[in-house]
């Protein structure tokens, strides 16, 4: 009797250790995020002391002469990302629909690994291709002064977002019950009417989440953008800005952080840009997870 008791207590002791370890691992990621946030705030907020607000929110970025206007950088990132969304979202969703609803089995099996390969291409390689092939092509075919434009960045970022959009959308489409499709078909709808009227709307939340995550991925992308957008801090003022060079927040941080001296106003401004970027990405991800949450609740109801 005492022996059994002893063994059980030893077991639960081991379990206690394991539980604690897992718990620590779980909390550590929260801890890291908080540390990063603290680090960003500690280094970025002093900018309020160094740089006047009218300078910080002006339209000229030329840090070596103390012009710290971050608006062209924020808008630059938004223009590229918007362009990437305009390209990546329709293509991604169409590809997902094709794979999940239309393609014969063997095409499916060929396409899925191909898209995974696309996801695995390092962004430097994509940027290199963009600079060597895509940018001259765009300059000549669209008769632009230079091929290093927001559009070039958007196309490449679209390509980066597509694998995310495709794989998550495809999962969402696959979880649409077969019964939905059959019900629609039994009502005399064609295959296309079924896809657009029933299957895609039924997978709506999953597809929205795919879009958000794809966009989140492209906002944060740096290397590719730095190689193909020309990095000129022009203030984008219309949709025409898509065809002109721009400078993104990520490219600015990446190319300037290495050289600035710690504690200088320029250094604090770069961290402040980091905060802005962090908040935007956080916003996008929160939106994505809220959509995911809503979707989960609904599917629970459907299955019950």
């Amino acid at each position: 009797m005492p022996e059994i008791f002893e063994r059980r207590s030893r077991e639960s002791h081991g379990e206690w250790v394991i539980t604690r370890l897992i718990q620590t691992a779980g909390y550590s990621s929260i801890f890291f995020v908080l540390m990063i946030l603290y680090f960003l705030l500690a280094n970025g907020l002093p900018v309020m002391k160094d740089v006047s607000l009218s300078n910080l929110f002006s339209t000229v970025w030329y840090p070596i002469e103390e012009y710290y206007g971050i608006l062209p950088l924020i808008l630059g990132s938004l223009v590229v990302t918007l362009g990437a969304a305009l390209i990546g979202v329709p293509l991604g969703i169409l590809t997902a629909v094709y794979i999940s609803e239309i393609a014969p089995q063997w095409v499916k099996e060929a396409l899925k690994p191909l898209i995974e390969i696309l996801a695995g291409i390092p962004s430097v390689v994509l940027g290199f291709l963009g600079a060597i092939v895509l940018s001259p092509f765009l300059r000549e075919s669209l008769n632009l002064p230079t091929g290093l434009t927001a559009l070039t960045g958007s196309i490449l970022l679209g390509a980066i977002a597509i694998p995310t959009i495709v794989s998550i959308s495809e999962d969402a489409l696959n979880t649409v019950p077969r019964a939905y499709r059959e019900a629609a078909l039994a009502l005399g709808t064609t295959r296309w009417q079924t896809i657009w009227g029933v299957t895609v709307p039924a997978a709506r939340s999953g597809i929205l989440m795919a879009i958000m995550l794809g966009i989140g991925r492209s906002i944060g992308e740096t290397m590719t953008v730095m190689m193909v957008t020309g990095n000129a801090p022009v203030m984008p003022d219309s949709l025409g800005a898509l065809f002109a060079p721009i400078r993104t927040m990520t490219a600015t941080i990446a190319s300037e952080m290495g050289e600035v001296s710690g504690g200088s106003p320029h250094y604090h401004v770069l961290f402040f840009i980091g905060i802005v970027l962090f908040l935007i990405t956080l916003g996008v991800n929160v939106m994505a997870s809220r959509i995911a949450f809503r979707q989960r609740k609904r599917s629970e109801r459907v299955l019950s």
Partner: protein
Amino acid sequence: MDKIVVEHLNLRYSDGTESLRDLNLVIPANAITALMGPAGGGKSTFLRALNRLNDLADVVAQSGRVLIDGKDILEPEMDVIALRRKVGMVFSRPLPLPLTIYQNVSYGLEVAGERNREVLDKAVKLALDQAELWDEVHDRLSDPAEALSGGQKQRLCLARALALKPEVILLDEPTSALDPVATAKIESSLSELKKNYTIVIAPHNTQQTARVADWVAFFLQGEMIEFGPSKDIFTRPKDKRTEEYILGRYG
């Protein structure tokens, strides 16, 4: 009147199952014909042959004829879209489309090209009436269909099929997911509907067959063993296997 005539219908799936074997059967109009038999007997397969929903499945071999109003619907050149409007179907899972109550009923008409609001409104009301659902939902037609109870959802699925003004209604175990009260409502709608429609149902148990059927076909492992008026099948079945099934010898 003979609405559907089935001659030598054979059907085999890609996994080799002979789901229907030499099926010969005449389904009368304006009556409820019930397909009775243990699971795996081929009832669903047969129902899906009647609106060509089997086109989606892995069917490797199909032969024979299915005549609806004298026309063979298995012909490759058959317009399946038109066929499915004429032959409506209700499934066992009460699963409305992810749309509003109204849209669920009007959906079939809208994809068929009907744009006139008044026509749609009228058709939706009529269909919901026929499915005995109008009184419960008329004040919340633009709520998501998801908000309805299980029984209401299934009646909505019936209404959505009825909105297309079909001639034949197929029902595959339509009450298997419903409670007795909801089941009774569906059954009462059906006995009203049979005055104007040809109804083919795979009930989800023998009791239901006895309650609703005018005619009964007994399916066993892909074969139709016996066909006759409900009364005869239940009181003096010709085949021993039918009798055993009714007495509860099969699962």
